[in-house]
């Protein structure tokens, strides 16, 4: 068993970055995720593993530092919160286009605009539909506990390098600020320069002796070549949809109704399910762990199983519900319940919404 600690989600994410063998973290403070860079600076990761930590002058600079470091085959990471993630969208588009692996964590807060600093899930569209310009998708992992804030860091890097893509960790102020018990995984050593060069021949880290130079770019002025590159990207996204969907089912075996919720909302919904079952209402929970690719097949399986309605519970005005609707169509009832602007729904009001919108509606 690994080391047990009581940590904030943000601290667990930072500690996991050190332990996962990240080479460079580049970030800019913003509430409610500043603990990430504060923790990293205090921990002196350069002494522990050789990891570099740099406070950039802006989120725009930070994401481009990831581009530089990631394009050489090194593990690069940043984190921010909603307004900062908006500033990074240009960079994410370039990273996706140039196929540069890296990990970006968004500790979501209320919006739009400057919004507030309380937890929200209103960056779902931005996370799963592209966010920046051009045809691209990013794998999106949504932790629902402090433990997952730690575990999803190495998981994200595995995906990032397997598919040569940026990976988003989408959490929120609640998971970021909350403390829970976390079992820390053992430190994985950083790859040496030689290992990076051998393992990632695409890395622009100095032209190989006697070999060809490498170019890392998202530019191709020939539309036919660029279309071909897009075909390649789309193939990659289809493979991700086929192979990398992750989800959790709770109490779904006998469920008449299913709440679909991720991250913080899924935690609150678990309580709602307990309350419902005390009243004899058979409710289950489908928790998407990958927001993209979305667990469509699982929703189909639940319909086949006889589920009579889905309630999407989100701290947003209704974003994930669109993906549920795309999957369900008119086969069964789908509704959304959400609080937004940084307001967290209570377990009781979720249950009430289920009764009103799905069971009675």
């Amino acid at each position, binding site marked *: 068993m690994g080391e047990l600690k*009581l940590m904030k989600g943000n601290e667990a994410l930072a500690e996991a970055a050190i332990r996962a063998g990240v080479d460079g973290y580049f970030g800019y403070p913003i*509430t409610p995720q500043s603990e990430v860079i504060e923790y990293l600076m205090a921990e002196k990761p350069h002494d522990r593993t050789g990891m570099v930590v740099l406070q950039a002058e802006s989120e725009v600079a930070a994401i481009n530092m990831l581009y530089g470091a990631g394009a050489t085959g090194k593990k690069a990471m940043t984190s921010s919160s909603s307004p900062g993630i908006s500033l990074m969208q240009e960079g994410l588009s370039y990273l996706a286009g140039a196929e540069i692996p890296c990990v970006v964590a968004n500790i979501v807060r209320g919006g739009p605009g400057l919004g507030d600093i309380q937890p929200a899930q209103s960056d779902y569209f931005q996370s799963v539909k592209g966010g920046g310009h051009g045809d691209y998708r990013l794998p999106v992992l949504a932790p629902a506990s402090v433990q997952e804030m730690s575990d999803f860091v190495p998981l994200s890097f595995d995906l990032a390098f397997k598919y040569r893509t940026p990976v988003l960790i989408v959490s929120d102020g609640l998971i970021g600020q909350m403390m*829970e018990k976390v079992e820390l995984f053992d430190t994985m050593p950083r790859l040496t320069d030689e290992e990076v060069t051998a393992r990632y021949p695409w890395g622009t880290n100095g032209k190989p002796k006697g070999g060809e130079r490498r170019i890392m770019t998202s530019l191709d002025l020939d539309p036919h070549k660029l279309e071909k590159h897009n075909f390649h990207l789309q193939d990659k996204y289809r493979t991700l949809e086929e192979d990398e969907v992750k989800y959790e089912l709770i109490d779904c075996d006998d469920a008449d109704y299913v709440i679909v919720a991720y991250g913080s909302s899924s935690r*609150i919904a678990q309580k709602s399910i307990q309350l419902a079952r005390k009243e004899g209402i058979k409710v289950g929970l489908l928790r998407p762990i990958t927001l993209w690719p979305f667990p469509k097949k699982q929703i189909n399986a639940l319909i086949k199983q006889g589920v009579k309605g889905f309630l999407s519970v989100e701290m947003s005005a209704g974003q994930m519900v669109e993906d549920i609707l795309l999957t369900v169509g008119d086969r069964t009832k789908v509704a959304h319940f959400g609080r937004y602007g940084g307001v967290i729904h209570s377990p009781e009001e979720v249950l009430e919404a289920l009764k009103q919108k799905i069971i009675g509606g």
Partner: protein
Amino acid sequence: MTEEIIIAGFGGQGVLSMGKILAYSGIMQDQEVSWMPSYGPEMRGGTANVTVIVSDERISSPTLTCYDTAIILNQQSMDKFESTVKPGGVLIYDPNGITHFPTRTDITIYTIEGAKLAADMGNTKIFNMVVLGAYLKVKPIVQLENVIKGLKKSLPERYHKLIPLNEDAITMGMKNVVTS
């Protein structure tokens, strides 16, 4: 066993660290714990509160609307949280600074003169440990030895010399909590 607690008072009273020590104590005896603070501008000189859950099972929602126990350390928190205690639950408060006393009859109400006792002991910083002692007397959800272990885990090494003082404060709280 699942115990859902709200601890609320002024920033600087040690509300968050009391919750943290309680959570760490739970970990020391293999329980699941969560600690969810209020955060943001309201913390700066204003009220601070934290929801702590200690359970034998996986914890669902870390934020709640009603609690088994409310530990209340100022008037604003009394106004806000008295009504959130579940029927049959517990409310513990320090009467220091309270002008409108709790009135509910479907819960058990205790008082602890935390501020006064800490001052008598010569260190107002151990106020929160006195209150923690009062709580543990009423709800012994974690054993004292695990609280000490939790303190060791949550305090930096340089503060370990203060652990005996904290232990005294907890004992003081245990001895002096009274039903109101």
